[in-house]
């Protein structure tokens, strides 16, 4: 299996990554290099095997917890926005989305 340049462009768009053409070509070669070792995995017969999302599920049932939806932290807007690239009047600024 081999990826094409078009697929690299499509995935880069999905992943929201700008890839200049020369970088895209290098990425294509390296990802294809990697997929050469993936082939062995595809050939394994996994009929009837359940996927393992949480490793401890190997030995016991694991349920992902949800906690109650109640505020546990004091409001710290200033600290939370300290590392924001653009803030105005306590709001995060982004480029205009709706004309």
């Amino acid at each position: 299996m081999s990826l094409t340049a078009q697929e690299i462009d499509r995935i880069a768009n999905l992943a929201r990554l700008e890839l200049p053409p020369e970088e895209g070509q290098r990425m294509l070669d390296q990802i294809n290099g990697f997929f050469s070792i993936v082939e062995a995995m595809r050939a394994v017969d996994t009929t009837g095997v359940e996927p393992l999302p949480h490793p401890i599920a190997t030995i016991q049932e694991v349920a992902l917890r949800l906690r109650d939806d109640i505020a546990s932290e004091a409001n710290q807007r200033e600290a939370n926005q300290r590392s924001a690239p653009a803030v105005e009047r306590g709001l995060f600024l982004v480029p205009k989305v709706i004309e």
Partner: protein
Amino acid sequence: MTALHDMTVAALANQLRAKKISATEVAQHFLARSQADTSGAFLSFNPEATLAQAKEADAQLAAGTAGPLAGVPMAHKDIFVTTDFPTTAGSKMLEGYRSPFDATVVRKLGVQAGGAGMVNVGKLNCDEFAMGSSNENSAYKPVTNPWDTSRVPGGSSGGSSAAVAARLVPAATGTDTGGSIRQPASFCSITGIKPTYGRASRYGMIAYASSLDQAGPMARTAEDCALMLSAMCGPDLDRDSTSLDVPAENFARDLNASLDGLRIGIPNEFFGEGLAPGVRTAVDAALKEYEKLGAKLVPISLPRTELSIPVYYIIAPAEASSNLSRFDGVKFGHRTKDYTDLVSMYKRSRAEGFGEEVKRRIMTGAYVLSHGYYDAYYLQAQKIRRMISDDFQQAFKVCDVIAGPVAPTVAWKLGEKTDDPVANYLADIFTLPASLAGLPGMSLPAGFGEEGMPVGLQLIGNYFKEAQLLNAAHRLQQATDFHLRQPGGAK
């Protein structure tokens, strides 16, 4: 008196408790040493914060309210978020980032009420977002190995391993997703342990691959690792949905237990042709030592060892592509100066903020999760992951712990593998299986191989058997002196 930097965590803790030295004096000593370092191990310091923490530790020691490791200095891998220090994850994406909170592990080890009382000297270099095995993927600077400065310290916790080996700090935190504690510990001749997945909270540990990431200590001795690990673990049920409801333990409780009759499983797949002869010789000698201590070596098989490479490098990038989607230049992190609309802002910010290996893994992950490929790659990998985990359970029917090399070779030269990502991936072969299974694993110094470079022995235990691993490691360290040797670079 032994120089402060030659003391272990245990020895420093005793001296501090006995009030023979003060936390402030200790912090000043290690801070000066660390700030004079030229290996690239540290990414940031905040002497004011370090000394304030030391002062707090001194106050707690005087008041009798101090935690078990009060005043002992350490440093955090720059993957753990800290309020007192910047946190970058080794990435330009987070240059200058200041977290509004401390990671759970940081709180548990620190001087806050209920913490172990350790003092943070600074933040340690690592591969960008913990992706790498040589520390060369750090966006800031590479780290040199104190045993040979032309070589890598391993990765991704390369700053941690180099700093501990050079005695800049007696201990550090690391994180291990596919071997990132064990492999650098091996390359720098220190001791490191990754606990069972879910033991240490991932809250505030910048996520790479959430179903694999685990925090653990890196220090010179198994005893020091046990002391730190005891403080790091425990349920964090409201803040980490994968944290296990398993109480913290005193992992040092069995350090001196006899190894008589211990069954050590030797996977034949770990001793194949890819293993460097010098590494093999050192590992074999360590295993002989175990026999002298009363352990029995049992041949076992982990038949899917090789498959763990593609399985890991599908699952981890898939999770990474999802985790790293939060870096969009809106609420924190890098934002490009040059954009036309929201989408171009996302794309450029990410293109500028992420390094090459991170982009490669995001791309691979996005691809294997995309429509039409999910079943063939991601789901298939998760199924084989279960088979790999089952293989371990099969093996643990006939043995108590598993032993083998950590890596096929000793530390390689800086630059040697930078153009060949697959070569880097293949070198992870012996650490990936335990990572995929979520089992505790450790590395301890086992001697020296090619070019006189350190070799680590890997021990893998069954779920929740950290105390047993640390016992086995401690007993070997009582019988050998590899963990006491220090690199020529360390003065």
